[in-house]
């Protein structure tokens, strides 16, 4: 597709005759398709992208600094606001890190409950990704169907945790409450109907010739490049690299569950799309296994009233919906953290923009941004 266009690139001899120039286009912070306040300065040669420079920081809120002025427990709610579409997973990362530095053992029952809520959040995040990605590429109805499915998950969250979007899900040491009465049958009903809805999305998109033409061969990143760029999550697995934190560095009893990690082959937008769709199906499997095998027991480990971790540092990583989310915390023995650093997957995946977009057309830039699945809250913190 890209080869048979008249060569009007910057180095061709035709250029002197036609006096064509590179254009710098600002895919500005205010744009319907940049998933937030993300700015890309795209250098174009006609319609072909020659270079792309990301400008971020429009949503910087000083979250890591904010956490230094709050106690360890008080700091928990702010990390929901990082990846605001996958809040429960962020919370899990932070409390996991604090539990690691404290040496607290989270009871098995709490671990299973955390797995159920995490995977529900992963489905919700992927649903919104599907909706917005479809909308960017032009399929408008997928957004509404995805949001409608998300409503069911948010209802489940509201009944269990109290809030739909930013629930501040876990206290340090476990979970606050067990499932309410009547929650598990509703959840199972959702899980029974959800795969049919995913079938609907696949009918609308996966074999659709327009979708395939728009996404196959676009935004390609090879496996070596992906690893060199530290990509993670479905962005990495679309290129065929088998790295999923839930399998590689299991946490919270993920080793008890049987699920597949979907991999792509070509590393293009289409493969990443397929990866996420299949991940949604696998999440359903995990939740069903967790609900079936829910043990009895305590809900919270032994954590004192005031948390004063010993001096030291800890790094804890979870498989967030966007990729590998890591929390690096440093404690100096006080009741407030000395330093909390978040390894935000969207921020690091965004480094791959230039590799993926170079040589493509400007319409592909939007498809690629959608396929990396960035949330500016995470990118800018």
């Amino acid at each position, binding site marked *: *597709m890209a080869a048979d*266009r008249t060569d009007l690139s910057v180095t061709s001899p035709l250029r002197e005759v036609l006096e064509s120039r590179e*254009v710098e*286009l600002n895919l500005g912070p205010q744009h*319907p*398709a940049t998933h937030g306040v993300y700015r890309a300065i795209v250098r174009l040669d006609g*319609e072909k992208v020659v270079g792309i420079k990301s400008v971020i920081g429009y949503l910087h809120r000083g979250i890591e600094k904010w956490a230094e002025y709050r106690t360890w427990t008080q700091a928990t709610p702010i990390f929901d606001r990082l990846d605001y579409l996958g809040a429960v997973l962020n919370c899990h990362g932070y409390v996991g890190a604090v539990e690691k530095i404290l040496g607290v053992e989270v009871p098995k029952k709490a671990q299973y409950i955390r797995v159920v809520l995490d995977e529900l959040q992963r489905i919700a995040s992927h649903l919104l990704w599907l909706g917005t990605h*479809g*909308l*960017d*590429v*032009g*399929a*408008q*109805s997928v*957004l*509404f*169907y995805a949001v*409608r499915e998300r409503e069911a998950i948010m209802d489940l969250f509201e009944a269990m945790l109290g809030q739909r979007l930013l629930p501040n899900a876990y206290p340090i040491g476990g979970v606050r409450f067990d499932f309410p009465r009547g929650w598990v049958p509703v959840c199972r009903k959702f899980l029974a109907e959800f795969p049919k809805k995913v079938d609907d999305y696949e009918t*609308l*998109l996966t074999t*659709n010739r*327009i*979708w395939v*033409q*728009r996404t196959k061969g676009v935004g390609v990143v090879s496996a070596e490049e992906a690893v060199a760029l530290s990509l993670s999550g479905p962005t990495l697995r679309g290129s065929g690299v088998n790295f999923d934190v839930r399998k590689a560095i299991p946490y919270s009893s993920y080793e008890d569950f049987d699920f597949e990690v979907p991999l792509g082959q070509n590393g293009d937008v289409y493969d990443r799309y397929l990866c996420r769709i299949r991940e949604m199906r696998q999440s359903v499997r995990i939740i069903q296994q967790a609900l079936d095998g829910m043990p009895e027991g305590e809900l919270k480990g032994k954590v004192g009233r005031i948390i004063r971790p010993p001096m030291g540092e800890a790094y804890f990583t979870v498989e967030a919906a966007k990729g590998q989310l890591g929390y690096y915390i440093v404690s100096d023995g006080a009741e407030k953290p000395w330093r909390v650093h978040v390894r935000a997957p969207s921020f690091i995946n965004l480094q791959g923009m230039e590799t993926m977009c170079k040589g493509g*057309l*400007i*319409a*592909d830039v*939007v498809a690629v941004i959608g396929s990396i699945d960035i949330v500016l809250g995470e990118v800018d913190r």
Partner: protein
Amino acid sequence: MNFDWMTAHVGMPLLKILILLVPVFTVVAYMVWFERRVLGFFQSRLGPNRVGPLGLIQPIADGLKLLLKEDVVPANARPFLFKIAPIFSFFPAFVGFAVITWALPWVTASGKTHGFVVADVDLGLLVILALSSMGIFGILLGGWSSGSKYPLFGSLRSASQMLAYEVPLTFSVLSVFLLAGSFRMSDIVAAQQKLGWYFLFPGIVAFGVYLVAAVAETNRTPFDLPEGESEIIGFHTEYSGMRFAFYFVAEYANVVLTSVLAAALFLGGYDIPFVDDAALYAAHPALTSILGVTAYAVKGAVFAFFFVWIRATWPRYRYDQLLRIGWFVLFPLALFNLLLAALFRLWLLR
């Protein structure tokens, strides 16, 4: 220069224009309502339903809002061209309705039978095609005179897209002309009344080509990259208020026009299906005309629904893929179809 002449050549045409304009404006305005509502229904939600019962006052509310907006002309824009560009889009979309025959004639005034058409020219179809080519100027002018990169890109893309799809559109219309023998709309409908399936059966390829080309001509999904709201916003980025309303209404008028044209060319126009129109016309001309207009409206509505349906479902093509389809797929198909139509004409229709 007597009363009869005045009535026949001035009075009646003016009356016809008035009678045509009011429904056409209403239909175009309510096409917006139709699209938003039906799009919502496809997406598991209600469309506008707050403003008036079923949201029926929504187009009026939108029109009022756009009228009351501040008139912004960007500093970098060329003021004169910026201001007149929407007119070039608006005007051809509505004038095309003048050459369409809506029903069999039954009004006689001053000794002359007046057909349900404002201007029954011999080359009715060609007039519509020529006007749609003029519509491109509005987009080009609007994009270039906005003085900013996004509209420029959008207008260039839109112009080459519309150019690319004008050709297959013209060829598919030409094959209808071959089958019917005349460019006049009433003759085309009359030619279809003899066939069982109207021109759908002999012109199935033409029908397909026409549909795809019509969707591309009117800049609708899946060919709406020039106004691709999620990418380069398009040629109307800098337009707001009533100027934007002109572009917006022009697009919906184009949709209505192409739907009505598709109904006329391929579905028999004002021919009432399953009924012997000639016999009915001899007995009750008024009833035939009224039923004819209704049948025509229903057929046009089917196409309008189809436009909204595919907007709700399919993603949009990238720009180079769009042009590739236009030139490399539709154009040969349209040429081939011309051959088919000629063969039909020779052997089947005599």
